[in-house]
């Protein structure tokens, strides 16, 4: 089965609303990264996490290594937040295992 399960697979939000994405790990993740893939395919780094929480503007992410999950909260969603979000867990030596992605569409 998938070592990194990401949910939901797709999400539609009204502009200005809040939501949360989640990744559950069946590997012993030591760090987690969250990315946004833009329409051209490039991965934009959002967060790099050891266990704990980080916040950047309208985004907040938590990595709980004991319970093997990570979340990405989006507050006051904007049109430019649309895209595909990926989490990726590192369990050993720079190897990232990616989640299956969440396709987010923010509507006006």
């Amino acid at each position: 089965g998938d070592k990194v399960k990401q949910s939901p697979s797709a999400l539609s939000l009204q502009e200005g609303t809040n939501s949360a994405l989640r990744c559950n790990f069946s590997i012993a993740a030591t760090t987690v990264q969250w990315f946004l893939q833009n329409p051209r395919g490039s991965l934009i780094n959002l967060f790099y996490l050891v266990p704990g929480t980080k916040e950047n503007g309208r985004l907040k992410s938590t990595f709980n290594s004991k319970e093997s999950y990570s979340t990405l909260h989006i507050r006051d969603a904007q049109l430019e937040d649309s895209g595909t979000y990926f989490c990726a867990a590192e369990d050993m030596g720079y190897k990232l295992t990616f989640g299956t992605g969440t396709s987010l569409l923010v509507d006006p």
Partner: protein
Amino acid sequence: GALVYQYPRRTICKSGTSMRMECQAVGFQATSVAWYRQSPQKTFELIALSTVNSAIKYEQNFTQEKFPISHPNLSFSSMTVLNAYLEDRGLYLCGAPGLGDAEQFFGPGTRLTVL
């Protein structure tokens, strides 16, 4: 963040032919470079992890015979897709950890189309 460039951004090759893609780290030393593939409508799969002065480690389902990698110095890596077929289509990304910690930064990718 660290800068990673990839070339070419897009390429088309005929089925059965080969193509080479390049990855350049700018402003930092890429001791390790990881190559990933994102097949259409799928997530990213690790192809191999290359460390300077060490053996290249390929993941299951990927081989050196099919995806030979060169990593001659701390700023450059290249990978060739040999004998490309339809299932090799996708976006190939290279990633490297940046300065100070293990956060990985990725290049914009090489999108391979196989006709």
